[in-house]
């Protein structure tokens, strides 16, 4: 029940520091190498990902498209360290996350990656503010510090007057915005957004897209967003189409600008 972290573990991590720092200078923020994920469902094997090679540069805005069930969420879970690939490797800032122990993995999810889940995944028994401050507290922030920052972020997503509301008493769009605020809580360097505008009206959707792209352009945050929303594509550097667990095509921004509205 000790409240402090194992000293020897911290020492071991510190010892690895120089090596990790070297790798950090790689330009690649996210890299997947031949990532495969299969699910065993009784007799059947479901191939959710069939070998995905993807490289995302630091500060790049990438959109992920594809029909339902092609493996977008599965891929996000691999990148976010929430699930392990059946085969292949995932590198975050050049570090193979399969090498991380549970403590480091939790740290990665907490400090480095902001994940906007497809179905919000807010904690139902907590208020909007508590939901947003939770990752900050996990990161070691003081309670009042976390509260101030939480109020700030929630106000930015337009929920300054809903701080004390629990998710059950909020609309889908409002919950979505709390989820966005929570993902940004620890100023992550990578934001994974799984259909972040899926439940929003056009105007709020555009605001979220605007916020993500500002984060990307001004703060150099790497954004990967799964979307069906064409407005989202116009702010993207690249659009990656996923089909049936494979990358079907990758298009650059220039191509998209011409074809906006016709892309599928």
């Amino acid at each position, binding site marked *: *029940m000790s409240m402090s972290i194992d000293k020897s573990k911290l020492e071991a991590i510190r010892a690895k520091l120089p090596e990790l720092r070297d790798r*950090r200078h790689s330009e690649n923020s996210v890299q997947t190498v031949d990532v495969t994920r299969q699910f065993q469902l009784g007799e059947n094997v479901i191939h959710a990902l069939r070998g995905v090679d993807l490289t995302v540069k630091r500060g790049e805005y990438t959109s992920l498209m594809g029909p339902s069930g092609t493996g977008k969420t599965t891929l996000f879970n691999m990148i976010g360290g929430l699930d392990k690939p059946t085969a292949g490797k995932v590198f975050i800032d050049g570090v193979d996350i399969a090498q991380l122990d549970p403590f480091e993995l939790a740290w990665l*999810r907490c400090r480095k990656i902001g994940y906007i889940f497809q179905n919000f995944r807010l904690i139902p*028994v907590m208020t909007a503010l508590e939901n947003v401050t939770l990752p900050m507290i*996990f*990161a070691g922030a003081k309670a009042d510090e976390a509260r101030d920052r939480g109020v700030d972020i929630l106000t930015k997503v337009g929920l300054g007057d809903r701080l004390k509301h629990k998710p059950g008493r909020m609309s889908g769009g409002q919950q979505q915005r709390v989820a966005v605020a929570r993902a940004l809580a*620890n100023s992550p360097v990578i934001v994974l957004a799984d259909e972040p505008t899926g439940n929003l009206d056009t105007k709020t959707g555009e605001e979220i897209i605007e916020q993500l792209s500002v984060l990307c352009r001004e703060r150099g945050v790497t954004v990967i967003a799964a979307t069906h929303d064409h407005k989202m594509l116009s702010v993207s550097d690249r659009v990656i189409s996923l089909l049936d667990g494979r990358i079907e095509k990758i298009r650059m921004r220039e191509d998209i600008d011409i074809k906006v509205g016709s892309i599928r």
Partner: protein
Amino acid sequence: MSDQNNLVPGQTQSVPFSTVISMVIGNVRSRIGRSVVTLFGVVLGASFLMAAGTGDILRAHFAQEEADRLSAATAAVNVLSELGTLDGRTLAVWVAKPSRRTPWILENINKLGDVKLQIYSPSSVLSKTVGNSAGDLAGALAGADALIVCNDGVDDAAPLPAAVDGLPGQVVMDLSGVFDPEALAAQGLRYRHLFGAGALGELEGMPSVKLAAGSGRRTWLIVISLLVSGIGIANALLMSVTERFREIGTLKCIGAQNKLVVQMFTIESALQGLFGSVLGVVCGWLIALTASAFNIGWGVVWSNLPWPPVIQFAVICLFVGIVVAMIAAIYPAAVATRMVPALALRSEI
């Protein structure tokens, strides 16, 4: 933001204890029904343990008390038979060393006849209730027919004080047999001792007030009842893990350490153990008290409760309750930490 490009924890990530507590309380409150049922299981186990243990303590205590009262009555009857009658007699009482029995002996003597007691005692309480107080032994002996020495529990033979010389031919009744009979006979005194050191020794050898003084079979019953409460808690927590699959998964997805998940379960369980055993201890104590009052009457029980061993045992019960609850949390907590976070995200709202 440069330090965040580091894939290395630069800062310890401990969630403050108060935050964990408030998360746990939030959870208990949102599932209050089940918490109450779990609590009830702990209450049952703890009250069983408490009732059995304090039942032993009370039984031993009141057995001792009963034996003491009986021997006090015997001593008084012996005084009567020694003097033939107590009516109109004056008795000097020297309470050299009072014991619990002393007032009972004197009360009994008072009841056996119209007797006058002249008490010389370091404790003034005695003379207020059963007789007149004398300033010294000589004062107590003035006009006395006999001397009763209440020297309960003192083993070393004390010399009789010179004042006794003024009591030739009278009876010295010694309640613990510390005087030398031959020396007294030489002084021309009749001597009896009304119960000896042997009898006292016997009394001290009464059943000791310890747990498991009872039969081995009951010890087993207690162990089993504790096991059942432990399993009840473990089961409730396992249900909680399943029910909160999504919530715990989400916590892990946004960066909660396994340690936090373990803490949440251990604290929830320990709280249930604490409150359950507090209630159980109270219930168990009331049960034991009622049972013993049923045997010997409320008056006797109330007037003389053995608080120190009972409180000591209650503390043991609380400790056992909390420890059992925390042990019960180990397996559910392990299940929760082994959970793959991504799976928790899939289940629909």
